[in-house]
């Protein structure tokens, strides 16, 4: 298999250099850009398999670059954001970015996220989704954990279904609310975090240390296979 091509967009030369070295060491084919304009030109000339995108660029906003890329490229976008950028992070995710890491990030974390976004296919159409010991049967609307049936309320099931169909993908609160409660959110939608806590009590061994249903602070939730994450 030829190595995946990753476009790294950041205006800090030190970060660009560190990422280029490490990503090459990890076997990726790396291209870099320091401005929004360069990034779009490079992506057009040599379509990347994935983009690592800083949110703050000298000639524009990273979220706008993401939105522009999304118009003609399906390559997954991994956003780099600084602490305190929560609003911009959400905006970037809503503009089509697939995931994010917060600066300062660990290289392990960045590589794991990059692998995950590259591996992820389009949402599965298989009616039975197995994630670790968790099996979600969309046709029978039944859930089992390690072979044992799990009883869920209708909202809890919808929540789990949506997360399972997007295994590994970060789903923002608005995405979840739109999907589970519909375009006009119901009044219970304020209680998303409570639904998640209840769902965790049913599918996690230790709800305070979730292995399947992870919280991304200030952004949303993702459902992961415990054996595939935490590299």
């Amino acid at each position, binding site marked *: 298999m030829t190595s995946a091509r990753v476009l790294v967009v950041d205006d800090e030369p030190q970060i660009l250099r560190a990422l280029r070295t490490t990503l090459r060491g990890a076997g990726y084919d790396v291209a870099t850009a320091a401005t929004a304009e360069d990034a779009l030109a490079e992506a057009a000339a040599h379509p990347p398999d994935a983009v690592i995108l800083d949110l703050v660029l000298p000639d524009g906003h990273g979220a706008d670059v993401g939105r522009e890329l999304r118009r003609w490229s399906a390559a997954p976008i991994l956003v780099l954001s600084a*602490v*305190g950028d*929560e609003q911009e992070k959400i905006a970037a995710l809503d503009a089509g970015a697939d995931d994010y890491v917060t600066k*300062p990030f660990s290289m392990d974390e960045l590589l794991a996220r990059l692998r995950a976004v590259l591996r992820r296919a389009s949402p599965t159409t298989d009616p039975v989704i197995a994630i670790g010991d968790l099996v979600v049967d969309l046709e029978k609307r039944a859930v089992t954990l390690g072979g044992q049936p799990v009883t869920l*309320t209708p909202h809890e099931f919808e929540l789990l279904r949506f997360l399972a169909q997007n295994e590994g993908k970060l789903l923002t609160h608005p995405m979840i609310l739109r999907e589970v409660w519909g375009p006009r959110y119901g009044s*219970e939608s*304020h*209680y998303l*975090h*409570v*639904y*998640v*806590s*209840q769902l*965790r*009590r049913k599918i996690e061994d*230790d*709800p*305070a*240390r*979730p292995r399947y249903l992870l*919280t991304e*602070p*200030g952004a949303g939730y993702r459902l992961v296979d415990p054996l595939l994450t935490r590299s």
Partner: protein
Amino acid sequence: MRANSSERRDPKQQLAALATSLALVAAVTGVVFAVRSFAPVLSLGVLYLLAVVPVAVLFGLAWAITISIVSMLTFNFFFLAPVHTLELRDSANWFALAVYLVTAVVVSELATRLRRRASEAAERELEAKLLASVATTLLEADHVQNRLKDVSAQVADAFRLADAHIELGSLRSAEPGERAVDLRLGDSFVGRLYFPAAEELPAVAEERTLPALASILAVAVERERLSRAALDAEALRRSDTIKTAVLRAVSHDLRSPLTAIRAAGEGLERADLQLDHEARGELVETITGEAARLERLVTNLLDLSRLEAGAASPRPELWTADDLIGGALETLGAAAARVIVRLPDEPVATVVDGAQAERVLVNLLENAAKFSSADETIDVGASVEAGELLMRVRDRGPGIPPRQAGRIFDAFESSSRGTGMGLGLAIATGFAQANGGRVWFEPADGGGAVFVFALPAARLPAKVRS
């Protein structure tokens, strides 16, 4: 407070005065006609005062004098010989009529004066009421500007204006259809009162009420300026103290990881050093470990400066204790393995900024990890007591001597027990308070320390559980 409205040249009013006067004079004439056989006619002239006095009270001195003369002529015409003429036969009658006229005028003057006094008293009462209510409104105000609308409404009400508004320090000239009156205190300009051009201010307003109003407004504005200045001075003093402490702390706590990173990096770089695989690994570990320590310090400093600047405005959302504690354990890293969590059977929730609440818990957990040995467990529990969600973090370290317990929440209070800038607890308290919560310390049974993070508990509707 419309004092002289009755004396204004209002045609309707004038017509009423004329009709009333004529009716009264006619009535008295009738009475005199009826009783003239019982008393000397000349002595009955005084009865016309019964017409003059009410007119004086109701319509003022000018009308009273007119009616005095008219009634004198009427008396002469109907009752003094030769009757039905305005001539007089007897010189004694001249004298009687003159006495009557003088009496009528004097009585009228007295009556009008009395009336003016009464209306002045009413005016002063209204004025006092207005000023008192304005003063009360402004005293209650945290911001004079916010209450100007209320004050303007009170003024409009008292002056019976359809509309009025006050602009502080405004030099805007009146727009078409509008009139403006300056509010001044001595020579200094306070603001302007605007009202519809078609309306009139009461006569006393400009000379008495408005200056009083201006002085109340000026006092309120000054009071606000002074309290803001005092707040600014306090904030400045605090930020100065913080800056000094930050500089002191930065010089030590930031330099030591930097020194370690630099030494390890340079060691790796030098070709002449004989480093085996293990030694290289150690140097690399130093760099990553110290970088992580620097990161925590920088995060803490940034948090603190945001808190001190009042910039850490919370974005409250409904969160469960599960989520907050889970998030904190995630952030805590390696030390999370020592933590034992006890959650209630049903999720308990609070409305809080998730990231900030997590920060509080992380700092409490880091504190617990720092002050107890690595093989001891840390307990975290959540419960709802008396409407509060309490999250308790308990360590099994040596605890905190009572002497120190009061100061541990101050920024840069270096503990005798360990390293670090002591920022963690100050930040925890800051974020807790910004979210309407509290953090306090309790000694633990059997040694160790318990830190409690309390937030108002949220009530969950039953349907969420179904």
